[in-house]
């Protein structure tokens, strides 16, 4: 291999990870009797939005569970994500500012 050809090979600077594509769950036909998780990301006034959502959801027969991230600046802790995944069939995450 000559120097000239070697300089035409470079090293991949990326993580070289292939992104895992996950299939979304089918949209439920109705929310009646379904447990819906509402995740407050701790932004100011996100609770106002979620309170209203809870009223609407309960109105259509859904069960609502409320969750809250410790801070909006960091991803939800893994334990919280797991808890939501086992307690709810549907989750709504509120982004408010």
């Amino acid at each position, binding site marked *: 291999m000559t120097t000239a050809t*070697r300089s035409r090979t470079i*090293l991949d600077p990326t*993580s070289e990870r292939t992104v895992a594509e996950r299939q979304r769950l089918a949209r439920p036909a109705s929310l009646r009797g379904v447990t819906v998780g509402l995740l407050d990301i701790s932004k100011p006034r996100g609770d106002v939005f979620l309170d209203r959502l809870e009223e609407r959801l309960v109105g259509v027969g859904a069960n609502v569970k409320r969750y809250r991230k410790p801070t909006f*600046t*960091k991803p939800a802790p893994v334990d919280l994500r797991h808890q939501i995944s086992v307690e709810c069939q549907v989750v709504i995450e509120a982004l408010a500012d």
Partner: protein
Amino acid sequence: MAATDRSTTLPDGIVVVVKEECATCHSVTSVLMQLADATPLTVFTQDDPRFPAEPAAIHDADLSISWHHDIETVPTVIRVVDGIEVERTVGWHRDEWERVTGVGGLGPDLPKMRPGCGSMSVDPDLVDELNVRFGASVLGSRRVAVADAEDEMEMMFTRGWTDGLPVVPPTEQRVMRMLTGTSRAPSDIVATVPPDLVDVTVEKVAIAAVMAGCLPEYLPWVLTAVEAACNSEFNMHGLLATTMPVGPVIVCSGPGTRRIGMNSGGNALGQGNRANSTIGRALQLVVRNVGGGRPGEVDRATHGNPGKVGFCFAENDTESPYGTLAAEHGIEPGVDALTVFAGEGTRCVVDQLSREPESLARSLAANLQALHHPKLVLGFDAILVMGPEHARVFADAGWSREQIVAGISTHLNRSGAELVRGADGMAEGLPEAFADAPSLPKFRAGGLMLTYAGGGAGLFSEIIGGWANGDIGSKPVTRAVTY
């Protein structure tokens, strides 16, 4: 690897490595004859396979023996037992040769000693190629071939690997050379990089350092910056995801900053110095390419700031009247260290008239109060970069670091009534619950940090504003540099 190891294992007995071009090697050919008669001897020659004429030598044509056994000087004499090197000597030194070979009366006509010559395997023109030929198998990254008709610079833009400026193509030779800057193995995990939470190796950091334009001696600083930035405390994920204009600001100190030629003087926060310009850029390229943190994706900044290409500078710690930021965070003075800070761009404070510390403290406070919004307090930290002429006002009055911070902070207290939403005709402000607070400081304890950098002339200081601080956002992280 096993085959390579076997082929480069040295034969038992005495091994001597020579080259024809070396005068000292010529002068010891008679000694080699003496050794050949007295002990099992193998001679390797680097350049001319016919040298020496006697005893016959093996041609180390590809320099694999020389490279694998770290031959830096010829002649080198090595005693080998069971395939393992026991001891060696270099050049010609009669006593040493007799001790290593166990043969007496060597070279009676020669002077007592004569220095050797440089080995071809460390020839500056060859060493990078040899490092790739024999050492690149340690590199695990995918090799990406560039087509003959392809412009490699454009190809890296097209693949999204750059920050918008051209990058140095990370060839095997360049990455191997970069890795000489650290004692750490290429496969070592440095940190887990957000947002994709990917374990990054020393090798991938070295690739980013090459692309950013770093020299090998900067690599320990880049590795330390990656470690300091990629953890929950500093919260690099949050820095990316926020709409605020912040990025990692790296403040370096210690004698190593001078060894690598960092700028802590005139234009320290600006362009023109290779180390300042490339260390911070390398960190950001790691976040971009390894972590997957890209503008418009997880990076949601509304405006960003020009420092997000890379923002790194050194403190002038030899002349600082109040020590370093690293020392403020518990690092012993004189130790190479860096602090990463979630910072925006710089804001200049002009005060060309204050000659008394009290007056200057008030000026600085008036500007600091406005950080992000005059009515928002306790939520943001700041670094104050004082130049020599402002710092001297405090130093001449005998104010310590603590006194300067306290002196400025005295003028950064406001009543809750002044700060609540709606006060002074501005909707922005603190919640109404703070209305009765008699006095609220602008900064949390430790939230106003001092550094010392800048050129000789100019009665100015620079403010680098922070982002959401503490547990809810980002804490400055200080680390000693690991080499």
